[in-house]
């Protein structure tokens, strides 16, 4: 009716307009229903706000549900630290549902880096002692997951009590909690060690498992404990034997193997106890043999036990026959169709290949088959193992397999395979020719993956095998003609063609089909290398020098070569430009010396397994040579100057030599001494140069086992205020001596006593000719470039007599 008023009760109740809180399931559904990351975040943020409000209002009834939701959200990666205090409240509640979620929350949210975690110590203590098993279980679980060192110290007595309780459910947990406590507080070992021996008598598998784990942990931490527990070895052996033969219970059987986890754990403990201990090892020998032969290998569970057995056998003092048995088991594993088993076999064999080489050798064919595995972790191990198995009797066969593998292997294994092959070839090559062939093959197949010293090694190898020069140069020429992209190959080929170009053109070589090459083709090929954009600067250097050398090896006129050299005088690459200019000068001003300069390389002493043999060869070759530097092209042109200086009557030298050397190199004794053998006393150092704070010292060593060898170390120091940079030292000695310069330690000497540069000279002086040494120094100092050339005076006579 109009005009009638309706009165509402206006007493406004403080009603909170909060939506009823979601159940966990609903929240999960809502989150999973979100279509995008942003939507999910929105849902979660909204819910978290509710949860936070609920925590603030302190609703005890639904607290556990709120926390559960928060934990779910935390699992997804969202922050949940505001729930930490709620965990405490829930743990302190008397309801199991509350405690359950509270403890879970503690395990997930509290960790020892937050002080809050200590607050639950008291609750745990109470819960541990109040005798309700599920609650005690929760407390133990939490303690062993996030218990900090202080908590462990506080609660150790409670846990100890629980170890001896009748209920197996709790004892299992207590034992493993003890393991955690010892890890956190090693001193607690003394608390938990005594009960162990008693616990070993239990028949309950869970307790046994825990006990063995505890003993293992104790032994790993303290040698005293290790000694103490050796006396239980017989007991352990008995337990394991019973497991294997009769089996305690079928409920622990997995795929027909009785409690493989317990077996594995016992085997691990036996390993620790038997290691380095004859007596214990002996006690276990029979048992290990028994387990090794009786375990069913058709399923993974059995193989797991077998694997652990093998590991134990190999680690203790076992009888030789047992070790062979173990290796054979691994060999059988290699044939297993299960990839995982092949993996553990390969890993273990790799560890054993040094110590039990002949036993592992027996399985070589199977290992080689594993190279074909599709899983990279397997093929990599197979490769490592195969390389370790190469020896002098199987090298040819193995190399064939490995080279075939190299052609098809995945890219990330190529480098390792290539260097492995080269290393093995170096150690076991049956003939030089085989060696050269092998390296050649590696360079053609995987040239870009080889290490830098492969080039140097191959050139030295070829250089040292005079009978194979013709063969090598031909093969390299063919390889180069086919493909100029593989840089190491190109470099070696270029070097070879330069050195032995004359042999290439002769056309006759019994070992490969006759090759008809004419000079123009050879020059064209080298020019192609020079011009190719694929060639590295170093490669082009090789090619240019090779062309230069050919100017003395080939019959035809040198116009083509001169032209190329001339073009490169204006090359943008400074290194190449410098060479070209020097070579050009060689043509123009020093043509009379060209042939001598570009003579074939002498052989150089080389460090390596075949060094002795080659040293002999090189000594013979050395008679024919002039003073030769290390076989790098860059020294050839710089040596030019020094030879010049040494030959002429040294008008340019700063310190004129005390006596006039005749051009024929007649020997003059510098000092008048009787020819007594040098005393074994060390030769004094010699300061040879000083300028503005830059000083050069020589120190001498004559190794007693090689009287013809003299090692000189030059040391450049700098006490001035300015750095010395681009320091280069070169040396020359009389013709009858042989000099080799090794790479310097650097080319900068910082000011004010900074790290000096050192460089080693090796001088061979088989005829005990008097030593003369001319040095040329170039460096930058105080923004000026300095060049010093001088002959060293006062060389101690002990350095050459």
């Amino acid at each position: 009716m109009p005009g009638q008023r309706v009165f509402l009760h206006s007493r406004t109740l403080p009603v909170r307009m909060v939506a009823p809180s979601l159940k966990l399931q609903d929240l999960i559904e809502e989150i999973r229903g979100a279509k995008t990351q942003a939507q999910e975040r929105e849902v979660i943020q909204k819910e978290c706000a509710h949860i936070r409000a609920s925590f603030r209002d302190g609703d005890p009834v639904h607290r556990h549900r709120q926390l559960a939701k928060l934990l779910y959200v935390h699992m997804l990666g969202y922050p949940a630290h505001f729930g930490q205090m709620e965990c405490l409240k829930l743990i302190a509640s008397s309801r199991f549902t509350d405690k359950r979620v509270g403890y879970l929350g503690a395990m997930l949210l509290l960790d020892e880096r937050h002080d809050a975690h200590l607050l639950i110590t008291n609750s745990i203590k109470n819960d541990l002692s109040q005798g309700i098993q599920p609650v005690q279980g929760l407390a133990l679980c939490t303690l062993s997951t996030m218990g900090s060192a202080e908590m462990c110290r506080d609660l150790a007595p409670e846990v100890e009590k629980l170890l001896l309780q009748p209920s197996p459910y709790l004892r299992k947990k207590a034992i493993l909690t003890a393991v955690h406590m010892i890890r956190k507080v090693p001193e607690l070992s003394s608390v938990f060690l005594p009960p162990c021996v008693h616990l070993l008598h239990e028949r309950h598998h869970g307790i046994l498992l825990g006990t063995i784990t505890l003993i293992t942990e104790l032994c790993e931490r303290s040698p005293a404990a290790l000694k103490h527990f050796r006396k239980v070895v017989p007991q352990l052996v008995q337990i394991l034997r019973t497991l294997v033969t009769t089996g305690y219970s079928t409920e622990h059987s997995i795929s027909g193997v009785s409690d493989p986890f317990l077996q594995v754990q016992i085997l691990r403990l036996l390993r620790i106890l038997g290691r380095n201990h004859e007596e214990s090892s002996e006690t276990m020998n029979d048992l290990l043999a028994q387990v090794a032969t009786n375990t069913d290998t058709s399923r993974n569970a059995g193989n797991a036990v077998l694997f652990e057995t093998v590991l134990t056998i190999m680690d203790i003092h076992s009888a030789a026959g047992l070790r062979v048995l173990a290796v054979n088991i691994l060999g059988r594993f290699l044939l297993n169709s299960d990839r995982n088993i092949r993996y553990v076999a390969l890993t273990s064999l790799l560890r054993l290949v040094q110590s039990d080489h002949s036993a592992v050798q027996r399985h070589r064919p199977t290992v080689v088959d594993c190279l074909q595995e599709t899983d990279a972790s397997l093929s990599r191990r197979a490769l490592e193992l195969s390389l370790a198995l190469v020896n002098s009797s199987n090298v040819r066969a193995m190399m064939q397999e490995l080279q075939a593998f190299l052609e098809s292997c995945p890219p990330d294994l190529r480098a390792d395979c290539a260097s492995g092959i080269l290393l093995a070839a170096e150690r076991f090559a049956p003939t030089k020719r085989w060696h050269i062939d092998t390296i050649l093959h590696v360079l053609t197949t995987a040239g870009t993956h080889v290490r830098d010293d492969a080039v140097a090694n191959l050139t030295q190898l070829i250089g040292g095998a005079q009978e194979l020069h013709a063969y090598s140069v031909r093969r390299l020429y063919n390889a180069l003609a086919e493909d100029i992209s593989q840089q190491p190959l190109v470099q070696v080929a270029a070097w070879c063609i330069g050195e032995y170009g004359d042999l290439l053109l002769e056309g006759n070589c019994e070992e490969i089909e006759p090759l008809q090459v004419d000079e123009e083709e050879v020059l064209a090929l080298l020019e192609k290398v020079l011009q190719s954009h694929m060639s590295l600067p170093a490669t082009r250097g090789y090619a240019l020098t090779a062309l230069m050398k050919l100017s003395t090896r080939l019959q035809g006129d040198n116009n083509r070569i001169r032209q190329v050299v001339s073009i490169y005088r204006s090359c943008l690459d400074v290194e190449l430009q410098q060479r070209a200019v020097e070579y050009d000068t060689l043509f123009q001003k020093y043509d009379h010396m060209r042939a001598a300069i570009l003579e074939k390389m002498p052989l150089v002493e080389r460090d390596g397994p075949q060094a002795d043999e080659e040293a002999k060869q090189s000594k013979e070759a050395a008679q024919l040579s002039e003073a030769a530097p290390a076989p790098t092209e860059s020294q050839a042109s710089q040596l030019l100057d020094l030879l010049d200086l040494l030959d002429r009557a040294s008008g340019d030298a700063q310190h004129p030599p005390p006596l006039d050397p005749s051009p024929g190199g007649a020997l003059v004794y510098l000092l008048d001494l009787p020819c007594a053998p040098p005393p074994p006393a060390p030769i004094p150092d010699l300061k040879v140069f000083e300028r503005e704070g830059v000083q050069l010292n020589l120190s001498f060593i004559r190794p007693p086992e090689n009287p013809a060898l003299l090692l000189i170390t030059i040391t450049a120091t700098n006490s001035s205020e300015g750095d010395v940079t681009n320091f280069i030292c070169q040396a020359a000695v009389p013709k009858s001596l042989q000099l080799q310069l090794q790479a310097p330690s650097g080319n900068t000497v910082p000011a004010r006593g900074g790290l000096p540069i050192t460089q080693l000279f090796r001088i061979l002086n088989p005829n005990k000719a008097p030593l003369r040494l001319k040095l040329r120094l170039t460096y930058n100092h105080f923004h000026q470039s300095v060049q010093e050339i001088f002959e060293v005076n006062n060389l101690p006579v002990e350095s050459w007599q």
Partner: protein
Amino acid sequence: MGGIRFILIQNRWYMQFDDDEKQKLIEEVHAVVTVRDAKHTNFVEFRNFKIIYRRYAGLYFCICVDVNDNNLAYLEAIHNFVEVLNEYFHNVCELDLVFNFYKVYTVVDEMFLAGEIRETSQTKVLKQLLMLQSLE
């Protein structure tokens, strides 16, 4: 120190990690493990540990252990665990695990503790789980 470092599907951590470290680890493990297929072994080297994993339908179960631990044994442990889950949830599927995540934690805690294997008998574990359930 041997043993399990962490178990992933439900993240149970037995070693101390920061929250962001945990996230990062989870992502890394996920990246490493999901690109592998049946042609690979079930073991992956990861940082200075190794991961033993097994795939069941759409879920990966990963255990991270020391390099010296027995791979095959832990593989067996994963399977043992999954079989228990299967029994407990009656033919478990992914949704079961999601909606009952706290129960899954309970199963984990019954079978593993302090980074070691605790109970290996499926029968025993199931009995204990049912007992706990009755207290809810």
